[in-house]
Structures are given as C-alpha cells and as structure tokens.
C-alpha cells in the first residue's frame, strides 16, 4: 500500500485557483523533509561541539595569547618576550626528536593522547642586548584535539579516506582521545551571564541579580528589597548597602536624578521613597560620605587600593563588573543600576514580569571549546608567570648574565595540565575559584546510540540533590531545542537533558561591528541621554549581550532592519534580535552558548521555501547554507522565538490563528525529539514515560557499534551477531545512520499468554529461532598485561610455555599459549588458562644485573584468565604496543559468543523490557495458517497499564511492510506530513494481503493441534537485546573467601562473595520463630569464633596453647575462665571499644 497519504490532505487544503496557487508554496511538507538531511550533512550530528572547539583553535586561543602577549622581567622591563602569533599544528608525537603524525585510531590502540602542538612565534631579548630576536614555531604545549575538528586529520575526509585511517564514517567525532580512552566534554548548562534576573529568594524577597563575567573577574551582584527598602548585596561587603548610598557613591548625588533614572511614574517613586529616606536618615548626601559609609562595610578592609578607597575600587571592578567604567565615569553603571531597580519594581507592581530561571532563554550551554579555553588561559598564564619567576630568580642570583625568556618557557605544564583535566574530568581554575568534577566522561561505546547520546547530553550545574520540581519539569520553551523524552530516571531526572535533532549551540561573535551597526541604525547613545529621556514612553532600550547600548524610538523598525541584515547575511546568522514588549527592551545577543534552531521564514504565512528551491536541493545545486544565505531559512534562539509565530505545517489551517500573522514554519515536527528518542516508532502514540524509558534502554542495546568495531580495543564490547535494520523505521533513524548500525532484530511476536513462564513481562522464546541465530551476541573483553621495566635493563620477561622432552606441555593451563608465551589468536581459552606467560625478576633492585639474570632469578607472574566454567571463549586478537613510557603492553582480546538463555534481558523500542522466561521447542509454539511460527511470545498484560500504542502500530506496520515489501515509517508526529504511515493505510495493506485489518491471526496450538480460542495479535517487532545477561550476573557459593578484618564472608560477585541474609530476611525468621536457622545463618555460616571469657571480670582472655589453659590477662589468672562462641565481629567490637577506653563486659550465666 503506497498511497501517498499527504496528497489528499493537500488537495483538501488547496483552495480553488487563486493568487496563492500561483505563488506555489511547497505543496506538501513531504518535500520539505529534504532539508533535514541537507542540514545534517553540513552540520553533522555534533556540530555544536566541533564548532565550539574550532572557535577555540582558530580564534579563542589567539585572543588569549594576544591578551597576555608580553612578559617581562620584574627588575628590568627591557628584558621581555612577546608572543606575536599562535597556531595549532597537526596532531603528532615527538619520538626521539622526530615528529610523527598520528591518527586517532592509532592513539586509541596505543593508549596515546591525540594531541597537536601549539606553536607560537616570539620576539624576545637576549641578555642586555636590546635588539629583539625572533623565533618561530616555538612549542608551548600539546593540545588534545577534538576528532573531526579543523585541526584533526579526519576533517573533511570522505568515506574511503576515513576507512583508510581506520575510522568509522558514521562516527560523529566531537570527542577527544586521551591516553587511549575516548573522552567527551559534556555540555554544561548554566544560568546566562551578564543578564538581569528578577526572582524571589528563599525568604520571599524580590531580588535582582546579575552574574557578571569578564575575562578578569566573575562576580555576582544582588539587589534585594527588604522591608520596603532596597539594598545591594555583594560578597565584598559585610552588610547590605542601601542602594541610594551606592548611587551616591557612584556620583549620582541628586535623589531626583536617581528617581528619574528609575522612571518618573509615581508608583516607582513610592517604592523608592523608603530607601531614599533611609539614606537621608544616615546623613549621607555626597559621594564622599557615601564612599566613607561603604568603606566601613568592606569585608577585608586591609587589602586594596588605599589611596582611592577600597569601596570605590569594588564599585568599579566587582559591582556589575561587565559594565565598563571609562575614565572613572560611573554613569553607565548608574544607568544599569537604574534599569535593575526599575525591573525590580515592575516585578513588584506586576508579578508577571518575574524572570523564570528555568526558562531556556535564560540558560547558556558551555561547550568543550569554552571549557578548554578557560583551562588553557589559566595554564598559559601560569606558564608565563613561572617563566617570569624563573627569570627573576636567575637575575637575582647572577646579576651578570640575565638569560633570555625563550629558554624559560616550558611546554610540559600546558600539555600535562590539559591532558590531566580531560582525562580526569576535574576542572580546577584558581582564578575563578572553579572546581568542577565530572566535566569529561568516558564515551560509552556500548552501542552506537549510547555514544551519540553522550554527545548530545547536557549536564546541569546545580547539585542534583535538590528536591524542587521546577528545574526538573518540562519547560514549554524547550520545544524544538531540548528533547522532551530523553532524560534519565531517578536522581538526575529532568536535570540532565539532551539536545534535539536540529538544535545548534552558538559560539561567540565579535561585538564591536555589531555595536557600531546598531548605532548607525539609530540607537541613541546612552551617555548623551538623561534619565528622563531613557524611559520616555514609546522608546525601547537596546540591550546588547546584557549591556545597555542605548535607546531606540522605533523599536519594531529597528528590529526588522536588523533581522533583514541577518537574513541577507550581513551579520552573523546566529545573532538574535528579540523585542521584549513587557520590558520595553530590545535584546540583541551574539554571545556563545545560546541554543537555536533553523526555521523556514514565512511571509504572511506563506513559506519562502518554494518547490523550485526544493528541486534545486534534490538536484544537488543548492545546499542548506544557500537556504540560509538566500534568507529562506534562519536560526532563531529561544528568546527570538517569542517574537515569532511558528506554524507546524503551511498547508494545515490553524483555526484560531490568523494565517497572515505566521512568521515562520517548522522544518519538520519530528525534530523536536532528539537523536536517541528518534528511533522510537510512533512515539506520539505512546504514554510519555515509556519513551523516556526507551531512551535509557536504547543505550544498553547490543548491536553494531561502528564500522571499525572489530579493529578497536574497547575494554568491553558487546556485539549482536546478526543485527538488523528495523522494519518499521523513522526518518531520524535514517538521518543518524541507525539503519546502518542497528542494535536489534525484527522478531515475529505473538501477543498471547503461554506456559505461565511469561508473567511479569517475561517473554517466551522459540528455541529454533535461537538455534538459527536470533539474539546471538559476542562479548569481547580486553585484558592488558604490562611488561614492567625496573630500570637497569631489568624487566619482566615473557617466557615460552615449558614443555617436556616429548613436546608435551608441563602445565595444562598453558595450552592456549603460542610459542612466544602469549595466547595465540583463535585458541580456545578456558577458565584458569594462562594467556600471557609473564615472569618477573625475584629481586628488583639489584643494580647492573640486567643481562646476567638467569631462569631461576625469575618467578611466575602469570596472567590467568578468569572465565565461566563450561563456557568456551576464544582469543580474538593479541595486540602488542609500547606505551608512552616505552613499556610493552600486551592486550589480549577474548571473545565469547553467547546465545540467549533464560534470564537474558530483551526490550522492544517502547520501554517494554522483559527477561526471557523460558525457551520452548518450535513444535510446541503456535503456528499460523501460513505456517508462520513466532520467534517470541509476549504476554498481553504488558499493554493495558503501559499504554504503548506505538508498539501495536509498530507491529501491524511491520507486518504490512513485510507483506508489501516496503519499509514503513513511524516518525514522530509524522502522519500529516507523510513521514509516518497511518494506521488506516496500514490496515488496508494488511487486508490486501489477506491479513486481518487489526493484525490478529488465526493460530493453531502447537501442542494439541487445535485452533486457539482467540485471534492472536502477531507480527514483527524490533527487539533489542540489552547488555544485562545472566551469565555475567549469576552467582552462588558455598564456603569461600572471607574478609580479613571481620572474618565474615566477602561481598559481591567479583569477590566470590556470600549471599547476604539481610535485616528483613532476619526479621522474617524471627517472626517465624526459626531461631536455630538464625543461629546457623548469622553465626555458624558467617564468622564463628571461640573466645575465653573471664566470668569474674567479664573481659576476654586468651588460650595458652603451650600450657593448654585459658588465662585472663586482666585478673592475672586462669581460674574463672569460660569458653564460648561469638561472632568474630563481636569480639572485634569489644576490642575496638577497649581501645577507645570503653569496657564492655560479658556477664555469663550457667546455661
């Protein structure tokens, strides 16, 4: 059934021939879909990461070096070094003074860091000569390189070239390789900087806060209203300072001017009056008095510029630090404070104007480029200051020959600093007192989806323990920007988010030209205006990246002009122009970290993208960037979206909306979901939490990981042997390449009860299906053995397996070894077998004896494989490489092929997980009239409470797809645009091929042979095998190892631990009265211990084995000793108490 479903919808919509049909907008949105692949082609899936890093390597690093480009000796400023240029080279390593280029895959395999040298050109003086010397290509450190960024060797390579480099073309890049492990720097979510936020604090007071951030300082300014009076709170002051005092201190001595600055409305005056009164009552009238008042309240009065007064320097440098003070002129700060006060009072007068901290427009996302640039700046400054220090030390010591700076620059600091930060994830920047943990994480390669999911993940900045629901709730403003489904369950629910498919995160853009442009478009400069004029009715303030630029009398005209400039490409495409009617402000933003997304521009509801454009796109003449350049599509950020009216579809009438007021049209509704939730078919038919569950589970599904999966050296790798592409796909699946790297199989599912082993979501599996390869997976595990060097030529050695004279192995567990003493690829390796026959020298610190060591000087330090008894595992590969310390590391990858067994976990794509309850012979399985026998049986009770209608549609859609030979689609919200097949069409297809419209078949019982008493809902569903397998979890033990300290059985499977009889189990036994059982479990099977107790003093004695008597060391005799059994932990407790000077005494009675 291939009825183009959108056709009739379009026909219905198109009016009789009119002017509109002549203008011919895109007839149906089906065509517009082509924009999505075009967008992702130019952008890749992780453009935001790569863009951010590219910005750093091309611009950011330059800015940092330029800002700190001169260092000079303290004693003699004529001795200096100046950085004239900086650039990032190609990734390479230096091996024995030879520079070798490296590829990412090489780094993964050999545990290296994929990094490129940062080189600078310098100008410096040597000694007393004042003639500057020049040097080029000076190494100042190695920078870990993000894969697929400009500096990466993979940048711009095609598929064949990538394959030659050992790289998977579907891998999105955007991560780093540090010491062989792939590390992602997660996107960090923050409250936006340099913006006024009006909020209430915990006591319900209205506060206006600004977090200022400049290159020099980060500060937080808070203005609160307490008991009708307004105060400034700043960490540098011990007490809140009345705001009028602050104004006066900044030179605004006249109260009238202050009131004017806030606004002339009498209501503002009323609110301001108590504050003015308070200031007057303190008898502060002049700037001098105000500063004096404030000086008394400074936290550390000792420090600071004494001449000028501490509080003035605080006002200049800390108080709303991002507002510049030029030549001691505080006017800009005064105006800014005035605006803050005004916004506060607006909020008091009208509660609507409070800002929402959870609003996405008030958030900024910090990406890897920004984080690395913070770190680099810090390290670069440290390196420079260390050089200066060294220089000073040198010149102090030997006044005669001051050395030159170029010798003092050490590149190790930056190299190791960057490497350490990325590999541990600890971001410690002293300047900003920043100590963040877990910034970078290991890229999970469990499945392709898991690694993609990592790249789009956003971690929150605040602590996760907060119980508040506000930040966790779904925000309306995250529509299209952040995925509404993809969030973890539990602790981080709603805090950790994921980007939607089309979201882009901006990078910084240059501010200067934009400011000039604004001014030439009629923004009146702030410094020329009085308070009265600023707040004149009808005129809007123009805020540029949080700074007040000026005002404009015709805001709408100005905004339109700016937007027109943006659409024509004259200013950056990510500049946002937002007219805030409520605040009488125009916000222009060009800062980095804003989320935005592309939208089609519509003129009076008619799309600018026409059929001709789409044809050009399909023909390959036009790219996505051309759409941008021609002003057909533009990026809107969250704030600017508030000025737009966005229609879902052009051709669908919105009843309540005037068509002509529509300004934009969505590219595709499915793009509101992210990458991971995009693989759910028909997600809009499911109960919402089910989609969230699937997002978590899709990352655990086994499948193919990358095209180079068999050449990688992951420490744990799960692969599905016969991974398939889902029969019911979505457009997102095709866009992200999940159809090429699937993680599941299309199983024929019958929804019915069977055998009783299917309760609680368990599934019944067909043994023949398993025989034929369903759910078969490969688990590969890496075992690394290091050949240690002890110096002096003494090192471990790998010996060949010892044999007797007939060539028979002396030890059976060496059968997997090759003649070189390392397991041979392809050998079957069993539990307790040796995979590297390593021997270590018995005496390590013997000097100069390296060559003389004999066989007997070595002891075995074998690498023994610990596996599951009875399972055959195979040595897949053995890799030898030397690491950075020239040590030989031997990596053995051991492979285990597993078929599903009872207890393995499976899941469909709808958050419906279940374990395999039983495996049944094929002949016992029901079969249909066509001889089809299901692969698995699922219990129908899984449906009513879960309400996963999407799964049902997937089933019938898949069945229809099978019968007509076409992959069916189930994209989110795709029915109107034809990206999802409608149930009606699917049913028609089923009927055409002789199935029932509802997907229910007439089945015969495989056991008794008669027909089943109901029609059974049967068809294919894409099933994922999850990584949780019984084999890795099953555990039992009789007696076994014990903990040294308490002598109780160890805990956990990995330590062959005992099974704990916990408190609740104990309670049951007590309630039941099974006292002997408790005794046995808690004492005999745990840590029984025989003690000697003195009946007199009640303390523990000891047993003297020589004299065969027990003895109390307290009473100094052995007369009243009694023997008893205690848990060892109890005895330990007594002794520990005694060590703390607490005497526990045992009182014994005859029993």
């Amino acid at each position, binding site marked *: 059934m291939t009825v183009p479903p959108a056709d009739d919808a379009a026909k219905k919509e198109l009016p009789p021939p009119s002017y509109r049909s002549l203008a011919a907008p895109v007839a149906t949105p089906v065509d517009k879909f082509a924009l999505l692949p075009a967008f992702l082609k130019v952008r890749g899936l992780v453009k935001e990461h790569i863009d951010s890093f590219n910005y750093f390597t091309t611009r950011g690093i330059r800015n940092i070096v330029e800002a700190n480009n001169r260092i000079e000796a303290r004693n003699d400023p004529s001795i200096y070094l100046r950085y004239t240029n900086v650039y990032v080279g190609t990734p390479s390593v230096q091996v024995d003074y030879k520079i070798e280029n490296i590829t990412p895959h090489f780094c993964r395999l050999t545990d290296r860091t994929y990094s490129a040298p940062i080189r600078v050109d310098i100008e410096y003086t040597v000694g007393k000569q004042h003639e500057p010397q020049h040097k080029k290509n000076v190494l100042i450190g190695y920078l870990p390189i993000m894969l697929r960024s400009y500096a990466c060797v993979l940048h711009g390579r095609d598929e064949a070239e990538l394959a030659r480099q050992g790289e998977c073309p579907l891998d999105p890049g955007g991560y780093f390789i540090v010491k062989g492990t792939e590390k992602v720097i997660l996107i960090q979510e923050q409250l936006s900087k340099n913006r006024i936020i009006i909020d209430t604090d915990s006591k319900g007071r209205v506060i206006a806060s600004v977090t200022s951030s400049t290159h020099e300082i980060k500060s937080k300014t808070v203005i609160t209203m307490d008991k009708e009076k307004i105060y400034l709170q700043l960490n540098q002051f011990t007490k809140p300072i009345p705001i009028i005092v602050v104004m006066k201190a900044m030179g605004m001595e006249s109260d009238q001017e202050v009131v004017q600055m806030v606004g002339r409305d009498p209501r503002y005056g009323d609110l301001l009056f108590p504050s003015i009164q308070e200031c007057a009552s303190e008898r502060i009238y002049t700037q001098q008095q105000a500063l004096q008042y404030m000086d008394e309240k400074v936290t550390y009065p000792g420090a600071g510029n004494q001449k000028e007064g501490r509080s003035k320097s605080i006002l200049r440098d800390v108080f709303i630090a991002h507002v510049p003070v030029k030549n001691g002129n505080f006017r800009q700060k005064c105006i800014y404070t005035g605006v803050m006060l005004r916004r506060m009072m607006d909020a008091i007068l009208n509660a609507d104007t409070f800002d929402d901290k959870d609003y996405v427009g008030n958030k900024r996302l910090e990406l890897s480029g920004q984080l690395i640039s913070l770190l680099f700046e810090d390290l670069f400054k440290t390196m420079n200051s260390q050089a200066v220090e060294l220089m000073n030390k040198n010149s102090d010591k030997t006044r005669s020959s001051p050395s030159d700076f170029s010798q003092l620059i050490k590149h190790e600091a930056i190299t190791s600093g960057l490497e350490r930060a990325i590999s541990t994830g600890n971001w410690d920047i002293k300047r900003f007192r920043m100590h963040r943990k877990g910034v970078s994480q290991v890229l999970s390669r469990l499945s392709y989806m898991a690694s993609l999911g990592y790249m789009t993940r956003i971690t929150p900045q605040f602590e996760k323990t907060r119980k508040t629901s506000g930040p966790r709730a779904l925000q309306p403003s995250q529509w299209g920007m952040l995925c509404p489904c993809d969030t973890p369950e539990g602790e981080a629910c709603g805090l950790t988010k994921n980007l939607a498919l089309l979201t882009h995160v901006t990078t910084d853009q240059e501010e200067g030209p934009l400011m000039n442009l604004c001014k030439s478009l009629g923004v009146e400069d702030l410094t020329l205006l009085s308070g009265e004029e600023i707040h004149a009715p009808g005129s809007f303030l123009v805020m540029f990246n949080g700074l007040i630029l000026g005002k404009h009398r015709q805001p709408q005209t100005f905004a339109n002009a700016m937007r027109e400039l943006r659409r024509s490409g004259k200013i950056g495409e990510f500049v946002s122009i937002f007219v805030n009617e409520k605040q009488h402000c125009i916000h222009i933003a060009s800062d980095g970290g804003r989320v935005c997304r592309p939208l089609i521009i519509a003129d009076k509801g008619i799309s600018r993208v026409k059929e001709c454009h789409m044809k050009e796109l399909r023909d390959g003449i036009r790219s996505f960037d051309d759409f941008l350049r021609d002003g057909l599509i533009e990026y809107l950020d969250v704030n600017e979206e508030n000025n737009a009216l966005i229609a879902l579809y052009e051709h669908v009438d919105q009843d309540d909306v005037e068509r002509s007021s529509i300004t934009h049209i969505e590219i595709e509704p499915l793009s509101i979901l992210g990458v991971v939730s995009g693989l759910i078919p028909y997600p809009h038919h499911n109960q919402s939490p089910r989609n969230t569950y699937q997002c978590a589970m899709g990352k655990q599904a086994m499948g193919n990981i990358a095209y180079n999966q068999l050449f990688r050296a992951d420490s744990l790798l799960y692969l599905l042997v016969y991974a398939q592409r889902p029969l019911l796909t979505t457009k997102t699946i095709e866009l992200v390449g999940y159809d090429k790297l699937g993680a599941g199989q299309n199983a024929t599912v019958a929804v019915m009860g069977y055998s009783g082993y299917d309760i609680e979501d368990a599934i019944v599996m067909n043994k023949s299906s398993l*025989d034929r390869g369903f759910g*078969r997976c490969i688990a590969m595990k890496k075992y690394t053995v290091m050949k240690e060097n002890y110096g002096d030529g003494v090192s471990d050695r790998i010996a060949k397996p010892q044999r007797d004279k*007939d060539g028979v192995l002396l030890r059976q567990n060496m059968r997997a070894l090759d003649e070189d003493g390392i397991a041979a690829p392809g050998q079957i390796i069993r539990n307790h077998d040796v995979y590297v026959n390593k021997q270590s020298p018995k005496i390590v610190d013997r000097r100069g004896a390296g060559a003389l060591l004999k066989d007997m000087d070595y002891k075995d330090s074998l690498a023994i494989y610990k596996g599951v008894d009875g399972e055959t595992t*195979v040595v897949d590969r053995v890799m030898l490489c030397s690491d950075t310390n020239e040590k030989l590391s031997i990596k053995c990858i051991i492979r285990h092929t597993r078929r599903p067994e009872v207890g393995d976990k499976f899941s469909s794509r709808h958050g419906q997980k279940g374990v395999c309850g039983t495996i049944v012979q094929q002949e016992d399985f029901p079969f249909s*009239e066509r001889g089809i026998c299901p692969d698995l049986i699922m219990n129908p009770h899984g449906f009513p409470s879960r309400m996963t209608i999407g799964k049902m549609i997937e089933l019938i859609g898949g069945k229809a797809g099978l019968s007509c030979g076409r992959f069916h689609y189930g994209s989110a919200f795709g029915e109107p645009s034809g990206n999802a097949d409608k149930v009606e069409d699917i049913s028609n297809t089923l*009927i055409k091929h002789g199935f029932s419209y509802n997907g229910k078949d007439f089945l015969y019982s495989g056991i008794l042979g*008669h*027909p089943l008493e109901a*029609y059974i809902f049967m068809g294919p569903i894409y099933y994922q095998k999850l990584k949780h397998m019984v084999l890795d979890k099953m555990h039992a033990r009789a007696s076994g190892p014990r903990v040294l300290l308490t002598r109780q059985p160890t805990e956990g499977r990995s330590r062959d631990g005992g099974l704990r009889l916990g408190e609740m189990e104990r309670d049951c036994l007590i309630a039941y009265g099974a006292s002997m059982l408790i005794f046995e479990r808690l004492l005999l099977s745990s840590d029984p211990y025989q003690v000697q107790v003195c009946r007199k003093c009640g303390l523990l004695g000891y047993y003297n084995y020589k004299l065969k008597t027990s003895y109390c060391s307290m009473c100094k005799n052995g007369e009243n000793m009694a023997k008893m059994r205690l848990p060892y932990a109890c005895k330990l407790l007594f002794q520990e108490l005694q060590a703390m000077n607490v005497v526990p005494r045992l009182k014994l009675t005859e029993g």
Partner: protein
Amino acid sequence: MPKKGTKSKKAVDDVPDQQENKLPDYLELQRTRVVCNADAPIHTQGFQYSGAFAAMGVDNSVSVEKFCKNFKIDIKRLTEDDMEFDMIGVDASIANAFRRILIAEVPTMAIEKIFMADNTSVIADEVLSHRLGLIPLDADPRLFDYISENDVPNERNTIVFKLHVSCEKGSQRITVKSGELEWLPEGSQLSMASPAQSGDKQKTFTSFSQSQKEILEKPLGVKFKDITIARLGPGQAIELEAHAVKGVGKVHAKWSPVATAWYRMLPEVVILEQIEGEEAEELVKKCPVNVFDIEDLGNGGKRAVVAKPRACTLCRECVMGPCGEKIQLRRVRDHFIYTIESTGALPPEVLFTEAVKILEEKCERVISELS
C-alpha cells in the same frame, strides 16, 4: 467429504442404544466445524470424550473401522522441495503429531564439528561454524548411523567436508558460497596434533575403513550451492574441515528436515442468507483472495456465491461488514491442508513417510511398554 448437517428429526421416543442416531444440527456443527466469528473462533477444541453424546445415543469414539472408512490423503501439489496434500478424516492431534515429528524428530545430516585450520576473515570462528551448521546437506540420513559421544567417527556416521578459500592480495573482495564445501569421501585430511613418530600413518580425526564413495550411490554435497558463508577481503583466507553427523531437530534446528511443516483446516464459507445486488458486489470486492463470486440471476439480479472457499486466509473482512451476519466462516475439523517444505535432504513425500514410521515406532514402544 464434509458432512452436511442432517435434517433435524425430532423423535421423542429415541432409544439411547440406537447407533444410527444423528446429533441435532447445532451439535453436529460444533462437533465437526470450528466457527470463525469476527471476534473470536468458537468450538475450537471439539469433543474428545467418546461418550460425549452417549445420552443422545451417539457414539463419539474413535474406531479403526471408521478411520479406515473415512481416512483419505489427497496430494494437491508435489515438487522437489515442497508438497501440499489434504489429510482427511483424522483428529487434530494426529495431524499435529506428524507435524511435530517432521519438525523435531525426523533425522538429517548437518555439520556439527568444525576443525578450523585458518580463519583470517572478519567473521568469528564460532559464527562461521554456526553458519556452516545451518547449511542443508544433500545426504540421505537413512544411510548413516547416529554417532554417540564415545564413537569413533567413521564412514558410517560422519561426512567430512573441506573448505579452503583464500582471497588473493590485491584482488577484489570475494564471497564464499556453500558450493565451495568439498566432500572428502576418504575422511579427514587433517592430522592430529603430535607428529612425533615419523613413518607412522598420520592419525587423522576420522577413521574411515573404506571410502564413502563405495557405500553411497551418489556423491554427497550441499543442497544449495549459493548460500553465502562469508565474505573475504584481500589477503584473508578460510581453511577448515567440517564434520557432519546425524541428528534430530529437537536437539538443534539445523537437523530439522523441514523449513517448516504445518497444516490448516479446510476453510468452509457459508452464506447463511442470500446476499444480492450491490451488497453482493461489495462482498466480492471486499475479499482480497476472491473467495466469493457473482452469480447472475435470470432477471438481471446478482447473487453472491462462494467460489473458492479454499483460498480463504481468514482476514474476516466479509464477516465484519454490514452483511457480516449473513456469512459464516468455518473450518472443517477433520480436514487438514498439510504443507511440508523440505530443506532438501529428503523429498517431502519421503519425509512424511519417515514421520509416519517414527510415529509407528513410538506407538509400538508404548504398546510394548504397556504389555
């Protein structure tokens, strides 16, 4: 064959022991038909108990005479690989027994052991072995014995194949097909590990006393030569020896002689009430497998008739529409349309006779156990 319900002949003075008593229509329907209603099929189980209708004087027991009289097999289609036949006059349990035996208990030969000498392809040894195991072999299992754990592989219980392919460096990627498995009638060519004493005849993994060529009439091989086993890139090679043994599908699906074997009950479509005119045309159009046809009534009127009931796939479209009440879909309980799809070791008709033999054996075993 299907019995028509007898005209109801109510007799108050029915004598219980009168053998020729007929059941009333509705009971007869329940006994002989499964009625497939729109919502669910009813009377699926049938009446098993011999005395179910004893009160009405009807004997419901199974008797050999009745069976001999009624049982019939009618072969509809027979090709090399599959067959379709009607099995009439047996209970579902008997028909099902044959199906189960066909799937799980008729033995075939399949590759069970692989001796991997070299495998540098991307496919893992275990997966390659698994794939080889599933290849249907063209070997008559009746000519071979089962091998038990302690048995020495010999010409009577083991078939040896060799696969040795390599892809030259610098050449194109190649696909290894099942046709490249080479039969070794003389047994294994791989020698066992220790080559200590020279001069001795190399000990191999099989001990054939004679060539299999002498025992067998026709050479052995794989049934289909175009099954992809693996793909080899330049410089990769596979060298292995595969030993096939006799087994049954119960143990592993690779020994199952059938792709699948199943039956369906004969569909019976009954028009309970005349459907005429437009309604009839609609009905004909509605059925995707054209079960219905139009019969012209003399006066230009049209009437729906059942033309091809056998084609019914039970999509239930006809019984769900407005004229749904006028049609009844039924299945004849003792008429089975049986399909056997052989994997190729044995022709389907032989498979069925084998299945019958196995059932016979089982019955004999039960009888001997009981006596």
